[in-house]
């Protein structure tokens, strides 16, 4: 139990002294993405191999947080050389230990290599994906075993807390956060310092601080990476915030779909208590603070702060009207300050390095860095952290390496279900809270979904509206009914029942849903509809007037047809069709029974490209199958070539 900042510093020096800087360390990403591709087995393999080679005393093996490059996972970094290996499997492990750990040789086939641009990178810092980022928040993930507080302390952890408690008054902390220009990372973008000030000034003895870790946007997992990978950074921010606001109880509200995050944050709280960063008389300062963890039970709307508060009280999370804002009347009616995971993780940086340092990166209205989850039709799927003001083009092309399979970029969707789609002509837009709104989208929590020419924008709008219809809590009718009606119209359009006037009706519904709904879920629900109409109106018109889906996505408007002139009766599509719609047979030209076909597209995908017999049709009638007798293929027997065989190849 530490009782003063001096004791904390002493402990830190002891930890650093114990870690000889040249000690070999193998860090393996144990984030959700890498675990899904087998990281746990890689960690086991390293542990076994190191033990087998008798190196346990000299080499440390650890599972760490997610560094973000999910595309090439499982990721392994070997220190002190900082050699970075990608897509590592258990069978690579003996070679890595023999070559790199023992002989200090690089295993060439496992390092980053881009064949197209002929770029090779041995060290993490040289990989283009990382090189173009500014990783203040997630950069430490690969250096930390999230279950060991000492790893966080070794990197200077909890020094910001000591500074706040012993060198700053609560007002000064609030002042510093205000001056930093930090804005809420959960989606709203409200200035954090102003929110804190309101909660600090609100009358009342009992106040609460809450971490909103109910990350619900599909395709977004930034908060998860911080929760799983560097939980102490969030706790440190929360304790500082509690001190600034005058709260003695805090909650972390984590969605139960993140079991690893729950586990790691739980371990982190226990360790912080043991060390004296939580509990009574923190670091001998006289300040008391405790944290409890609550689990979200799978309701998207609970990310909204008033809904989250009710859920913490054990009730259904149905939002209420604001004001009163939680700053004056929150949990159990007491003044409450709620910030998102990433917002809290920024706090130690601001306190430690100062608002002026923090304000150096970012734009005039949005300061600092932002983590985005770059996903969808992009070569480098992963988490990227860039300064506010980075352009979409740099994020997508320099970091994300562009669109895979030689396809053409169509749009990028930001802001989750409440966000919007941004087309190619806005790619040079500098990403910050205000610029995205001007383009009809929002920053949201940081989801960035890239779409290519094969993505149908009407289908994307329908997808988001369907998502919101399922997640609408139903308390207010504009949201409950408005979204449902928009879904009905969009479904009609994507299934070929669109009619003149649908676009205008959608715009009208979107307007009234947005204006009249109770909470942010309904108020922002029109965004995916309006932004796709604004930038991709022609796609809506094609669907409605020509009953055609140009990207062949809407199954109701697409048919599959086998060209009899090209079909060789190879039977692959016949075998793979799960609807039994391909009428095949040996030496019989195949055809698709349109009454059975559900347009899943499997036949199109599996038809060997040298034949290319399966054809997608949209907006036109499907040709009738050829007569039964014309289906028979008479194959000529292959005549062996009469060239003499070389003697050496004879058995």
């Amino acid at each position, binding site marked *: 139990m530490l009782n003063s900042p001096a004791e904390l510093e002493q402990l830190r020096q002891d930890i650093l002294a114990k870690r000889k800087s040249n000690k070999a360390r193998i860090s393996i990403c144990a984030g959700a993405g890498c675990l899904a591709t087998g990281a746990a087995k890689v960690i086991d393999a390293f542990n076994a191999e190191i033990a087998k080679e008798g190196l346990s005393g000299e080499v440390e093996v650890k599972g760490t947080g997610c560094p973000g490059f999910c595309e090439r996972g499982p990721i392994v970094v070997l220190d002190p050389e900082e050699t970075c290996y990608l897509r590592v499997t258990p069978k690579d492990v003996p070679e890595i230990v023999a070559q790199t750990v023992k002989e200090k040789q690089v295993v060439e086939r496992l390092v980053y290599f881009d064949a197209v641009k002929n770029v090779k990178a041995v060290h993490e810092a040289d990989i283009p994906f990382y090189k173009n980022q500014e990783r203040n928040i997630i950069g430490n993930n690969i250096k930390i075993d999230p279950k060991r507080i000492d790893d966080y302390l070794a990197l200077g952890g909890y020094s910001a807390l000591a500074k706040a408690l012993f060198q700053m008054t609560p007002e000064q902390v609030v002042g510093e956060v205000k001056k930093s220009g930090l804005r809420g990372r959960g989606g709203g973008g409200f200035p954090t310092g102003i929110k804190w000030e309101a909660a600090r000034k609100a009358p009342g003895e009992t106040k609460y601080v809450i971490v909103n870790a109910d990350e619900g946007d599909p395709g977004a997992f930034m908060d998860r990476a911080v929760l799983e990978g560097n939980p102490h950074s969030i706790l440190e921010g929360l304790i500082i915030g509690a001190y600034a606001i005058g709260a003695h109880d805090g909650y972390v509200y984590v969605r139960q*779909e993140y079991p690893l995050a729950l586990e790691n944050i739980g371990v982190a709280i226990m360790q912080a208590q043991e060390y004296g960063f939580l509990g009574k008389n923190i670091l001998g300062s006289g300040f008391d603070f405790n944290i409890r963890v609550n689990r979200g039970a799978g309701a998207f709307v609970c990310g909204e702060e008033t809904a989250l508060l009710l859920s913490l*009280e054990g009730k259904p999370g149905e939002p209420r009207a604001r004001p009163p804002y939680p700053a004056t009347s929150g949990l159990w009616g007491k003044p409450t300050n709620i910030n998102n995971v990433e917002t809290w993780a920024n706090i130690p940086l601001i306190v430690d390095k100062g608002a002026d340092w923090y304000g150096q990166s970012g734009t005039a209205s949005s300061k600092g860095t932002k983590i985005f989850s770059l996903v969808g*039709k992009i070569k480098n799927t992963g988490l990227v952290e860039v300064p506010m003001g980075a352009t979409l083009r740099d994020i997508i092309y320099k970091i994300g390496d562009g669109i895979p399979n030689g396809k053409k970029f169509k749009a990028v969707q930001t802001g989750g279900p409440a966000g919007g789609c941004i087309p190619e002509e806005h790619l040079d837009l500098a990403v910050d809270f205000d610029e995205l709104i001007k383009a009809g989208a929002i920053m949201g929590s940081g989801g960035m979904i890239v779409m290519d020419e094969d993505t149908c924008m009407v289908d994307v709008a329908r997808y988001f509206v369907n998502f919101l219809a399922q997640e609408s809590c139903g308390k207010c009718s504009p949201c409950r009914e408005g979204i449902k009606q928009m879904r009905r119209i969009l479904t009609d359009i994507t299934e070929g029942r669109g009619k003149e006037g649908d676009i205008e009706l959608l715009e009208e519904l979107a307007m009234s849903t947005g204006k009249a709904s109770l909470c942010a879920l309904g108020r922002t629900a029109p965004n995916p509809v309006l932004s796709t109409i604004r930038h991709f109106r022609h796609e809506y018109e094609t669907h409605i007037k020509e009953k055609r889906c140009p990207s062949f996505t809407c199954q109701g408007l697409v048919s599959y047809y086998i060209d009899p002139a090209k079909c060789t009766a190879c039977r692959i599509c016949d075998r793979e069709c799960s609807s039994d719609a391909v009428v095949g047979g040996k030496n019989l030209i195949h055809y698709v029974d349109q009454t059975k076909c559900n347009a899943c597209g499997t036949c199109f995908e599996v038809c060997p490209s040298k034949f290319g017999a399966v054809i997608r049709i949209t907006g036109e009638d499907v040709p009738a199958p050829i007569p039964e007798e014309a289906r028979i293929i008479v194959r000529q027997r292959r005549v062996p070539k009469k060239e003499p065989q070389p003697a050496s190849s004879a058995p």
Partner: protein
Amino acid sequence: MDRKKIEQVIDAHNGEASALIEILLDIQNEFHWLPGEALEMISEKLQIPLSRIQHTATFYRAFSLVPKGRHEINVCMGTACHVRGAPRVLEVVQQIVGIEPGETDAEMKFSLDTVNCLGCCAIGPVMEIDEQHLGKLVPAKTAELLKNYD
């Protein structure tokens, strides 16, 4: 049904009414569904009307009021998976297991559900069967994978 287990769960939360969601989650994790008897016990012990417990249990997606099958399939319908073809994957799963999301088949072999995001977009489209992630799915591969369960 194990009444003792349920009592333990309730007591672990000090019988606080505010801990209702935590209690329901623990029971869900223990039994993989919320048996009606359990809801009645919570109602009695915490002095909460059964109707309010039903309201909560049906409001949150994590809870199931029907028993689950031997294998739980969760098809990810996150945006990244969606643009990479998740709807076609779901369609094939539905066709093969013969049930809709939220249902369990008559043999109690499979329960099917959709989830909003599993957070491993790099390997999308992805589904989770019995907590194991199966990625880079296309309809044909999905059909093949489902044969591995009985």
